């Protein structure tokens, strides 16, 4: 059985159909990418799966659990992590604290009564935070305010927060947007590590087609709310509907 599965997922905003009967299945341990032109419904699909929006019709199941009607924090606790498109960090907290918040959620669950215990007495949380800081190569900037980080570092911190929730399935919404070539390369390497070393399943939304074709096991193509193609990178590259709707659009992005 697939790790994540949607069946007939539909989302309407007033008269507009943003998602129109989307069926996708993601297997454990694979990296799938979602592509599609602007306004195709990519963000709506992620938001509907992760609980920010509730679908008009259809099902979402994760590891056999029905996600429809669950709150975002409950879905996150099941092991579905998310990094946001715009760096959605906690600006006035330090880099370390940003990651620590997520580590507490991963180690302690959604709520715990522990306001009389010091944070630094929770060793597992501190360890996990340090591990993430090292993985994402932000340990030298751990005590800086998140808001004073350069743009590329903010994006990496965004991914780090997603990682610190210790997910089995991680949604990454355009993780390389606005990054320099070096940073992009680092992020692509990181994605590879997450798959092989961490055993994560990754759901990537990405505009950079080179990255998508390079790293994906399978690709879903969304167009006007409908899934018009799915398959391996080679299949998608050759798919006539995709070429027409998307790749054939001129600049390839």
């Amino acid at each position: 059985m697939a790790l994540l599965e949607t069946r007939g997922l539909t989302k309407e905003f007033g008269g507009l159909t943003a998602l129109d009967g989307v069926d996708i299945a993601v297997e454990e341990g694979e990296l799938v990418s979602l592509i599609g032109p602007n306004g195709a419904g990519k963000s709506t699909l992620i938001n509907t799966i992760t609980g920010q929006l509730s679908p008009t019709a259809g099902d979402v199941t994760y590891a056999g659990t029905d996600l429809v009607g669950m709150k975002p924090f409950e879905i996150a606790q099941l092991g579905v992590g998310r990094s946001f498109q715009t760096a959605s960090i906690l600006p006035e907290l330090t880099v370390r604290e940003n990651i620590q918040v997520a580590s507490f959620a991963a180690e302690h669950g959604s709520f715990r009564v522990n306001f009389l215990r010091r944070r630094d007495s929770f060793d597992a949380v501190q360890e996990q935070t340090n591990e993430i800081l090292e993985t994402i190569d932000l340990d030298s900037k751990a005590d800086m305010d998140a808001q004073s980080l350069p743009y590329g570092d903010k994006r990496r911190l965004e991914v780090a927060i997603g990682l610190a929730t210790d997910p089995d399935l991680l949604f990454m919404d355009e993780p390389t947007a606005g990054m320099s070539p070096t940073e992009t390369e680092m992020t692509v390497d990181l994605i590879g590590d997450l798959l092989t070393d961490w055993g994560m399943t990754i759901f990537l939304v990405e505009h950079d087609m080179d990255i998508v074709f390079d790293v994906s096991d399978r690709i879903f193509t969304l167009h006007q709310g409908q899934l018009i193609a799915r398959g391996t990178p080679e299949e998608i590259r050759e798919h006539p509907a995709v070429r027409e709707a998307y790749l054939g659009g001129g600049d390839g992005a």
Partner: protein
Amino acid sequence: MSMDTIRNSFDGDSSVLSWETWNQIKHTERFVFLSSVLFVLLFSYTFGRAPVISDVFQGYHGLAMTILIWSIFALGFNLLLGQTGLLSFGHAMFFGTASYAAALFAIHVYNEPLLVVLVGTLAAVTLGVVAALILLRLHTVYFSIVALAIAQFLYFLAREPLVEVTKGINGLDIPRAPLLGLVELEHEYSGLVGTLLVNNLYIFIGAFFVAVVALITRIRKSPYGLIFKAIRENETRTAFVGLDVWRYKFAAFILSAAIVGLAGGLMAVNTQFAGVERLYWSVSGDIVVMTVLGGLGTLAGPVIGTFVFFYFKGIVNGFPTLGNYWLLLLALSFTAVVWAYPDGIWGMLTDFTAALRDPKELLSNARQRISDLVSTGGDR
């Protein structure tokens, strides 16, 4: 330690070394605890009786106790506004309700100050649970305004329909009772203790002040302190890492209500009185002013803000001519401070002390600040 390291630590920049040590010390719980004890020991004396200094303040012992209690109120309020980012315009509801509950318990059940304060606190917690269930469904300005509406509802309820219980605008008088049936609160000391602390009532209130400072310091250092700040910064993000934002907000609300309730109970014991004016909307407004003026989200800020507020209210008020305009003067100072220093008086002080270590930075900071104000029109 080898001679080299010793030499390095002296040859290096010895002033940097000491500042670093200081930075570490000042955030420890022990330091905060000792500071609050020292503050309580010296506050009434410097404020009311010390040679020269007290003449400048023109304060007195009774006002020192009022300031300590309102500081507890402001610290509790700050936990919600400064730490968690929830602006309640109705915190008078906890102060007033706790005061009434304390007084009613003292009059009708049993009059023992410690128990009376506890009952006041529990009443505020109970009210907090009900209010939170209503308020936490609301966001931003709706949260603030409905909080105000609940407090005003309780004000009118206490004033007219419940006049049999609350004695309406006359309020309730509480006889003075000994602590644990043994210790007279109004017993005055002589000698050094008398000079510093005057009487048992001050020690009673001061002990609660120290306890609340210690509790809040601990909460700030606990996972809650971090998660409250995360909610303040970005609620959506906090939910998406897997935290139940509603429950943490509920916890912040109840902790805040409990601390404010403690202040309300203490106020009843201190003044031997509980009245309807403690539920009035202006109390909710005053506490916002005190907290923001002193410095949101900090520990010392609310205490400083409370002090400045009462200094204007109790002392500038008495100045010839100028005294009639104390509220205007307070408003002007408030605007000036918050315009230039959004982090309040405490933010202003920490800016200064940080800059004093590095005068060059002081200059560049000042330039930066002025250019910021000019370019944004102070809109921050």
